């Protein structure tokens, strides 16, 4: 029995199920909890592909921070008193946008030249290698991302403070 393959199917299925529950669940706090399970499932998939650093980053950033921030924002609003499901005239537009995004992501899967055929064993990439390539080959994108995050941070502060004075 191929244990990693079984684990892949189990966690892949769990992650997909949780993902479906995120969008179908009627209670928005439950949706946030399901999101945690979906993200942790993806982290386990990363682990199975020997990307242990990425898996831990997934745990720390998505599990520990993003979901908590989401819940935090939910709790500051009155979730229990608001409408359970929001449906409005933008629905068809949202469907089109969602399908377009799906097509884009799927096309990326097929267009990307993968370094190795799926039958070969996966090589584990050490953390120093990731660090080095981030600061050499990918330095420019890396800095752009930092700048975008900084702008978002400053923007959030400006918007939050604009009511004061």
């Amino acid at each position, binding site marked *: 029995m191929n244990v990693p393959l079984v684990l892949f199917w189990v966690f892949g299925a769990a992650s997909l199920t949780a993902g479906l529950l995120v969008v179908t669940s009627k209670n928005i706090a439950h949706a946030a909890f399901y999101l945690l399970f979906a993200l*942790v499932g993806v982290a386990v998939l990363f682990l199975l592909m020997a990307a242990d650093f990425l898996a*831990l980053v997934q745990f720390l950033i998505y599990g520990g921070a993003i979901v908590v921030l989401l*819940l*935090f924002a939910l709790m500051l609003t009155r979730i229990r008193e608001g409408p359970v499901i929001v449906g409005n005239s933008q629905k068809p537009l949202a469907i089109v946008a969602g399908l377009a995004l799906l097509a884009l992501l799927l096309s990326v899967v097929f267009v990307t030249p993968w370094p190795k055929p799926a039958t070969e064993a996966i090589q584990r990439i050490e953390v120093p290698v990731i660090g080095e390539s981030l600061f050499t080959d990918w330095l420019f994108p890396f800095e752009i991302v930092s700048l975008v995050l900084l702008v978002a941070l400053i923007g959030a502060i400006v918007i939050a403070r604009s009511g004061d004075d």
Partner: protein
Amino acid sequence: MPEWVESIIRVAIAIGFVLTTVLVLIWLERKVIGHIQQRLGPMRTGFHGFLQSPADAVKLLVKEDIIPAAADRWAFQLAPALVFVPIFLTVVSIPFTRTLVVRNLDLGLFYVFAISSISIVGIVMAGWASGNKYALLGSVRAGAQMVSYEIPLVFSILGVAMVAGSLNLETIVDAQRGLWYIVLQPVGMFIFLVASLAELNRTPFDIPVAESEVVGGPYVEYSGIRWGVFFLSEYANTFIISALAAVVFLAGWRGPLLPGWLWFLIKTYAIILIIFWFRATLPRLRIDQLMTFAWKLLLPLAFVNLLITGLYLVYDWPRWILFVASVAVLAVASRLVYVVGRA
């Protein structure tokens, strides 16, 4: 014996050890704080109250399991497990000695932070699911506090990873041959201890569970063994954080004469006692003071520490310069706290 059987046995032993340690820690804290406050602490059950914790545990086990009518049932039941499981998973990578470790992970240091961060969701979930306004307020406080302090916590340890050139806890201990990192990274250790107190929701950062303000915070509706699991996780986390500090800053099992595991326990318990001492000594902070402290002092301090450590590595400074610079940074920072606190 197949490898997976051995792994399971190792994990079981580690979890059993931590569970036993938790019982000892609860007794120890009550005794230590009792004596600091000129009291005796538990005395009746067993020798100097040593059997008080097992007795309490049995009491919690047989208590009625109450789920409030207003609670969100499955989230309420799941939350204790979501706090408990990640914390006990982190034991896997803590090296007691070179051989006494469940698994020596290459990313051991990062692993502990990444996995334990999941338990924040459990606390927030507990508070939300209780259907109680005090629980909700407490969990909002917990979420804000723990997310804020996680950032300085991770940055504080980054300096150690830079000096040791590794995230492997065994390599980090080996790199401290002759000189413990408390000397090279005093700023890192300071930030680590303060930020982990906040992560543990312990005094002076016990704002999420402040009895006089939000009754018991996220745990107010919990009783019996579900409450016991939260309590257990908190003390297990105290042990793990202290063990991690002992490994990373005090060279873990390294030391003369005594066996390695004993050195490890001595160092770990030294840090645990400091944490208990804080609880008996310091008053609780206000929430705005707490946030200001994290974002305006600890985080910049962590950045300065990274900068100094980076300069030390790039220009190959002698070690004493890093030590002197770190102490100077700490001195300036404490002066700043005083001046800003007065203004």
